[in-house]
Each structure stands twice: as structure tokens, then as C-alpha cells.
């Protein structure tokens, strides 16, 4: 019988190898799926993984990887802080939406005045909106002992309803012929979050994501906060003896992750999305949770995982266009990739042993 034995320390070798094994297994399983659908499996896999990076139009799709990945990375980095400490904010989708609503509200209140202060004000509003929305479950946990997994999830639905109300009501574009949705902020120069270098994909959200990754790495590696987070995650009781105030840590982590999610919402609404619409959410906050775990809650891992996710999205679109693969097949493929990555990861911390356990 095969059983798992915990390693004394996570294996570095396996930590590096498992993502590649998982991707290979996904290619195999995905190839079978594509073949079953009557498509050439090799071509399909090449279209998904290779073409966005090195295909004939990679000049366009490579920067787009950054654009697609930026919000995922930004949100996931924020989440990783709390996740490492055992603080489960799964309501990033709501914080993302509220951040976008606040930022858009600031911009629309100022419209059409032009000012260099507007963009920073929006950044602030977005971060603050996300922060406050994230703090609600934090406060509820600290003050009332309410489980933050569940309250933060509930607040996603509240945020979605709020978004619909805003897109149909208060923030609706008065010149939009009555259709739901706000004005296009990407066409409002003071508010627009445009590419810093044309064609590079680098907008301020990408920059913010990269800064967040580096900052998180520094916090984890060098800062007191990182130490407290790791300690709390590993041994909550010992952490208290070591002087960690668990309540405060909950508030810091929930607030921080909320603020980053809110920022992501702000950069999206002012840039790639342009406008606040009923469907603005699109699940980034949930996908980011997956990204955080795929990256093993490590900032650089999250960077890689975010890009990998973006690759499957963009490659998946190419596969739809070129091979007429249904979007359903792409979703299954993504699901399999996640399953393999999550499943194989067990080898990092555990060693499979054959035979009975010693008593």
C-alpha cells in the first residue's frame, strides 16, 4: 500500500519539478481530450502554450499576457499574506468590484475636468474601497468571531448587487442611450490608465503588480510582519506567546489583501475594461485564489502562476479561432491543469512510501 510520509523539510527539487510534471500531465490528458473531439492534439497544445509566446502574432499576445495576468497577480499577492497566516479572504472578487466602483465614482464625479491629481485620487479611492470592504470580514472575525471565509464570500454577492445597481443607476453613462454601464474612463485622459510604452502592455496596473510581488517578497523574507505571518500560519499558539496579536494580524492581512484587490479593480476599470458594467467582475477575484495556490503562496511563484493562467486564457482563445475548439474544452483543460498542479504538489512536502506504516 502506498502512503505519504511528511518530509522534514519541503523538497526544493520537487518544488521546482512539480509544475513541469503537472503541465506535462495536463498536455497528455488534454491531448487525449482534444483528440477525442477530433482535433489534432499536438497542434492544439502548441496553439495554447506556444503560439501566444512565439507564434506569428506573438508581438501582440506577449504584452497581452501581462495585461491579463496583472490583476490576477496583484490580487493573489495580497491574498498570499493572509493565506500564509491562515486568514482566508476568499472575497477578493467583492473587494475588486468595490475598488473599481469607488475609483470610477471619483473619476465620474470629476468628469470632465482634467487634472493630474485625478489619477492618484482614483488609485487612493480604489485601494481604500477594497481596504474597507476587506476589513468588514476582518472586523467581524476579530470582534464577533464570525468565520471570514464565509463572510467575505457573502460580501462578494453584496458587491455584485451593488455593481448592478451602480451600472444601472448612479454611475450610468448619461450619454449611453440608456444602456447599463458607466462612461468610458479609458477615453477620459486624466482618468485613463494607458500603456506607459505603446505596444508593451505595461500599464500602471502591471507596474503595481510587479511592485507588489517584490514588496511581498521583501516582507516575507526580511520584515517583522512576514515573520509574524509565517509564525502564525505554522503555530498560532506559539505566535501569541511570541508577541503576535492575532486580531491585529487579521485586520492587517484582510485590509492589505482588500486594498490590493481594490487597486486591481481600479486599474482595470480605468484601463483595459474602460467602463463599469454589470459584468465587470468576470471572476478575477476567484481566479486569483487559484493563482495564489498555484504559486504556492510565494510572490515569485504567483508571478509565474499568473502568467501561466493568462497563457491558457489567451492560448485558449487562439485555439478557438484556429481550431474551432469549443470554449468548454478550454475550460476543462484549464480545470485539469489546476487539478494536476494542486495534486502533484503533494510530492513537495510528502514522500510516497510503499508498504505498511511502522507502528
Amino acid at each position: 500500500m502506498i502512503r505519504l510520509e511528511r518530509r522534514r523539510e519541503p523538497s526544493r527539487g520537487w518544488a521546482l519539478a512539480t509544475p513541469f510534471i503537472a503541465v506535462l500531465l495536463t498536455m497528455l490528458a488534454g491531448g487525449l481530450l482534444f483528440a477525442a473531439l477530433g482535433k489534432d492534439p499536438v497542434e492544439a497544445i502548441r496553439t495554447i502554450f506556444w503560439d501566444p509566446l512565439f507564434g506569428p502574432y506573438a508581438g501582440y499576445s506577449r504584452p497581452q499576457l501581462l495585461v491579463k495576468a496583472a490583476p490576477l497577480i496583484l490580487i493573489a499577492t495580497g491574498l498570499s499574506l493572509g493565506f500564509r497566516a491562515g486568514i482566508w479572504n476568499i472575497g477578493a472578487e467583492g473587494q475588486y468590484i468595490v475598488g473599481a466602483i469607488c475609483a470610477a465614482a471619483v473619476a465620474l464625479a470629476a468628469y470632465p475636468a482634467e487634472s493630474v491629481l485625478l489619477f492618484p485620487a482614483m488609485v487612493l479611492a480604489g485601494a481604500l474601497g477594497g481596504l474597507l470592504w476587506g476589513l468588514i470580514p476582518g472586523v467581524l472575525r476579530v470582534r464577533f468571531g464570525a468565520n471570514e471565509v464565509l463572510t467575505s464570500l457573502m460580501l462578494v454577492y453584496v458587491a455584485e448587487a451593488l455593481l448592478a445597481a451602480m451600472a444601472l443607476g448612479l454611475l450610468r453613462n448619461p450619454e449611453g442611450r440608456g444602456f447599463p454601464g458607466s462612461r468610458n474612463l479609458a477615453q477620459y485622459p486624466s482618468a485613463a490608465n494607458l500603456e506607459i510604452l505603446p505596444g508593451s502592455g505595461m500599464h500602471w496596473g502591471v507596474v503595481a503588480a510587479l511592485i507588489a510581488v517584490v514588496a511581498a517578497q521583501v516582507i516575507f523574507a526580511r520584515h517583522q510582519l512576514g515573520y509574524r505571518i509565517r509564525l502564525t500560519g505554522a503555530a498560532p499558539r506559539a505566535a501569541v506567546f511570541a508577541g503576535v496579536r492575532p486580531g491585529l494580524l487579521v485586520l492587517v492581512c484582510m485590509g492589505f489583501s482588500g486594498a490590493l484587490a481594490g487597486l486591481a479593480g481600479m486599474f482595470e476599470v480605468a484601463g483595459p475594461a474602460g467602463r463599469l458594467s454589470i459584468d465587470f467582475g468576470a471572476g478575477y477575484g476567484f481566479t486569483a485564489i487559484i493563482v495564489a495556490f498555484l504559486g504556492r503562496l510565494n510572490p515569485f511563484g504567483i508571478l509565474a502562476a499568473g502568467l501561466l493562467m493568462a497563457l491558457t486564457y489567451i492560448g485558449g482563445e487562439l485555439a478557438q479561432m484556429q481550431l474551432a475548439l469549443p470554449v468548454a474544452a478550454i475550460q476543462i483543460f484549464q480545470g485539469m491543469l489546476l487539478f494536476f498542479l494542486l495534486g502533484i504538489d503533494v510530492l513537495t512536502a510528502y514522500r510516497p512510501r510503499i508498504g505498511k506504516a511502522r507502528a
Partner: protein
Amino acid sequence: MQRRTMLKSAAAGAVLAGIATVAAAQDDVPKVGFIYVGPVGDLGWSYQHDQGRQQLQEHFGDEIETVYIENVPEGPDAERVLTQLALQGADLIFATSFGFMEATNNVAQQFPDVKFEHATGYMTSDNLSVYGSRFYEGRAVEGLIAGELTESNIIGYIGSYPIPEVIRGINSSFLHAQKVNPDVEMRIVWAYSWFDPAAEAEAAQALIDAGADVVLQHTDSTAPQAAAQAAGDVYTFGQASDMSDYAPMPRVTSIIDEWGDYYIERTQALIDGTWETSDTWGGIDSGMVGIGEMTDAIPQDVRDEAQDLIDRIASGEYHPFTGPINKADGTQWLAEGEVATDEQLLSMDFYVEGIEAAIPD
């Protein structure tokens, strides 16, 4: 657009143009791209557009290639997908949802040699056309039939979101129901969703419970049909697709989204080199608004009356929004004999007199 934005988009355009020249070289047959907001299996809006695509492919056979991307959210993804389609050598691209408007407009600017067509929007340019359907013409026919059929004098209407497109349909059907039945009353339920079959079933049920014996829907699933069938003596109309499975009762006729002919016509123009920017708002006459078969559940004289209305609308002899029409607040909207302009119709944000409800804001 201000200078900063313009400079940047011009530069971005140059980058894309550089990539795109590679693409243009490998073209053989014209390629027509479609982007859908929902899955093609939604049996409603996106499904009908894909039916149109299939008709197009069938019509031209090997002479053209069609590609589609489904389930594209109306946000940043739309612009990327449209750009990818253009880069992949699509010569004509149909963007089939209102929310794709600004993305389509942006991408159209960057690919001046590619033709774009946006459904239900209002932005046009040298290589961007818009097209949509005058569904309100079909609603007028439904309203007439509903007004004749109802015994409770209560007509139910399931709306998706309170936007002009939907409000127009409500007004059109109410006006024509009222014409044949002055006592008719309309009850409106908003589902607040483009797509939620269970909510549609519940909305239909709520209307039936409130006494409605005819239910019109501006949502695309057959759930209201099933609810009406279970209730027994309730009439419905197919929406988006024919829904003929529910004929002859409860579905007595239908409004069908027919895009195929338009897609064929525009692709032909592309092939002939005669494609020009256009603003098409097609009605019953163009075939874009298809009226499904009227079943025996409608008495013969009402069928004749409805057919007459269809014919008069199709010939242009009659416009469903012809005055006198007052707004719900009692003020005059159209004077005697006055016909609503398209501009007035597109921005309609009020109920007509006689509908005793308020539009949510």
C-alpha cells in the same frame, strides 16, 4: 479624444499594423469572424447569431472561412479577442453584443483594412457598421394577439434589464394590445439578468399567479413556456428562437432573431468589394425580425388581423409608434399622425400612458 490618448493609440496602431502585414500575406479565402458574449449553447442570443454564422458558411461553402469565439465577457477580453481575430486575418468581423461597442471601435481604428460590424450599437466609422433589429415590430404583433386572447385582461411581461430596447418592446406590445382591448393591463417583472432560466421560470410563475393569462418575454429561455404549459390556459410567444416545441400551446407564435441573411448580404458585399459603412436597423420587411408560425390556438379572425398588421408594417404603410401617444405621466409624446424617429425610439426611457408601473432606476 485628447492628444495624449491619440498619440498612444496611433503608436499602438503602428505596432499592430507591423504585425498585421505578416497576417495579410497568408490570406486565401475571405475570413469572417464572430465574437459572442454567451456560449453558443445558450439557445438564445448567441445561439441565434451562431445559427446565422452557420447559414453564412453553408451559403458560401468553401469560398469563405468563418471562425467564432464564444463566451467573451464584455470587458478587457473583448478588445484582445477582436484584435486577435483581426491579426489572424479576418476580413470581416461581427461583434454581436452591445457591450463590445467601444472595444470594436478601438480595434476598428487600428485595423483600417478590416471591416467591422457591431450589433445593436451606435458608433460607426469608415470600417465600422452597426446593425440591429426592430424587434418592436414583432412585439406589436404579439401585443395585438395578446390583447385579443386575454380573458383576465392582464398581460404579463418578463424583462431582463430596464433599458430602452426592452422598454420599447413593452410599450409596443402594450399599445397594440390596448388597441384591440381597451381594458387590458400590463404587469412587468424584471429578472435583472440576461440569462438565468430558473429566475425566468419564477418570474413567469409570479405573473401567472398574479392573474396574467398571456405572458410575453424579453428573455431567451423556454422556462416561461414550460411554466405556462404547466398552468394550462396561459399563452406565450417564442423569443429569439422559434420554440416550436411548445406549439400549438402555450406558444402561439414567436419572434425569431434572423441574422443569417444579413450576414450573407454583408459578406457578399465584402467579396464584391462593395462593402460600405452602414447603419442597418432591420424589421419584419428585411426578414431580420422573423415571425414564427401562428398556431390554431389563435382564432382565425385574430390570425388574419395579425397577418394584416404584419403586412402593413412590412410594407411601411404603418409604424407601430404612430401618434397620438402619451407618456405615462400624461404628457404628449407624439401628436396625432406623428411617427417616432429612430432617435426617439433608441433612447426611449418611459412607459406609454396606460402602463401603471414605474421604470426602476
